[in-house]
């Protein structure tokens, strides 16, 4: 059984079909890329998997459980985390607070916060420690107490990944993690993603425009165009697929 199984998924907004009859499976431990031109429905797929949108038809199963239509916070608690295309940090909080919020989100206890028994202090110290070590592993230790909104763009992207990992997911969805990065940053990111999979035992789906970026990182690539899957397979095969080339050239995309 695959970790994530999307079957026959269709998403419509009014008369507009954003995704049509999509099938997609992500095996445990895999790194999968979702590529395709603008408006292909990649982010919509993420939004359905994370509960932001409801599927119009079809099913989304995570670890065998039907999750389509559940609220986002519940899906997060099941073990799916994500980042956003246009970076959505808690800009007014510090970097470490962003991570701590994610560490603590699922296990809040207002009465413990107010009464603060000894075990609350221990847990608080523990969370702080975890958050710090997570930041360290993403190279953000020095920015721990800086306001998230004030960080350079590249670090904001990293922080968003740190925050996602803090929810202890088994599946991580990265929405254009390399957008706006220069080649050397991209290289670092690629290494980081690979390392994170090992260290945290993650399965990763990432959306990317840049086919080269996903080439030696991903085992499989799924190509969407106009809401439909037009190709799927190992990167090398997909890259030579005439329909893929047409889709990219047709929209004038020089990304490939």
């Amino acid at each position, binding site marked *: 059984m695959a970790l994530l199984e999307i079957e026959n998924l269709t998403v419509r907004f009014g008369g507009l079909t954003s995704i049509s009859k999509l099938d997609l499976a992500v095996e445990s431990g895999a790194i999968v890329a979702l590529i395709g031109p603008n408006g292909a429905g990649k982010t919509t797929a993420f939004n359905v998997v994370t509960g932001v949108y409801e599927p119009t038809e079809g099913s989304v199963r995570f670890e065998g459980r039907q999750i389509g239509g559940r609220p986002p916070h519940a899906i*997060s608690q099941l073990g799916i985390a994500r980042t956003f295309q246009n970076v959505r940090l808690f800009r*007014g909080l510090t970097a470490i607070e962003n991570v*701590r919020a994610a560490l603590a*989100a699922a296990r809040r206890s207002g009465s413990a916060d107010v009464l*603060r028994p000894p075990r609350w202090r221990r847990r608080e110290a523990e969370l702080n420690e975890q958050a710090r070590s997570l930041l360290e592993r993403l190279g953000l230790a020095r920015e721990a107490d800086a306001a998230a909104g004030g960080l350079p763009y590249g670090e904001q992207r990293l922080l968003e990944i740190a925050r996602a990992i803090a*929810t202890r997911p088994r599946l991580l969805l990265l929405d254009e993690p390399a957008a706006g990065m220069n080649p050397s940053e991209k290289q670092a990111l690629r290494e980081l993603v690979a390392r994170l999979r090992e260290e945290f035992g993650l399965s990763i789906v990432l959306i990317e425009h840049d086919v080269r970026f996903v080439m030696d990182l991903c085992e499989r690539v799924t190509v969407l165009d106009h809401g439909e899957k037009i190709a799927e397979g190992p990167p090398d095969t997909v890259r030579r697929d005439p329909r893929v080339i047409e889709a990219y050239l047709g929209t004038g995309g020089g990304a490939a």
Partner: protein
Amino acid sequence: MSRSGWITVAACALVLLALDVLLPRVLNPYYATIVIRIGIAVIAAVSLQLVNGFTGQFSIGHAGFMAVGAYVSAAFSVYVGAGWLEAFAAVLPGPLARVAYYPMALAAGGVAAAVAGLVVGIPALRLRGDYLAIATLGFAEVIRIAILNVDAVGGARGFSVAAADHPGADLRFEGFGTVYAVALVTIVVISRLVYSSGGLSFRAVREDEVAAASIGVPATRVKVEAFVVASFFAGVAGALFAHSEGYVHTNSFAFLRSFELVVFVVLGGLGSITGAVLAAAVLTAAPELLRGLGEWRMVLYSLLLIVTMLVRPQGLLGTRELGFDWLRRRLG
């Protein structure tokens, strides 16, 4: 709580008790009333800060929950509590009987307001931004007009917190210690709620609801929680108001009061508890301090608001806390 924590609490209790005894001897009733009103304003403002400043929801109907607290606690005292108080007084010395009774009246007001907050919050918090604002304002007015039509609490005639059939029970309560103890509890509870890892959820919802949900924060529930907790303390503030004034009228809880509370919160700095405390204290005292100006006093008061906001658009303290680390170390 740690040992130093208990020591701090004990010290605070002692200081408040001392204030309770000393202040009425030092301050005349006029100043005493102002000081008590400041305490009540602080409670209401800090509780609203949880909703508006920390959870980022824009409520402009907080006075409605004060009204619920004030009227329910007053009615409780007049129709039920007076008898209990008399019964307590039969076995306890007078002041002790009152100390034993008052928490019940306050709790009655607080719980009633919290229930109202839940009932209002669940449907209203689906709304966003200014639509939420206007809905809270609407609920507050509906609550007020509903109270105005209840004869058992005096309707348009207002409601005196005195029980005719229990002349021995003195239901008025003007202890500084009580008001400030409650204010302190409010400040401690709300600051502990928000300044903890779990409490980051409130601010996460304020910063970005979608992102908050993506890390597992049940945004709607967090909003309702904030609303209910805030309503509870607003209700307690209302209960204190009713029992210290001895007479309540729905006019005291019109939308102007709600606006005043919003002003406290924004002027003090959204997301700053000490800011709300500061603004509530200054702006509650100001109309009385400015009495020397005669008819110009409210003109100056409004100029003060405008100029402060122009000079400090982020509020007096922004999102910072005044000496909070110190306080946290003491109370932590």
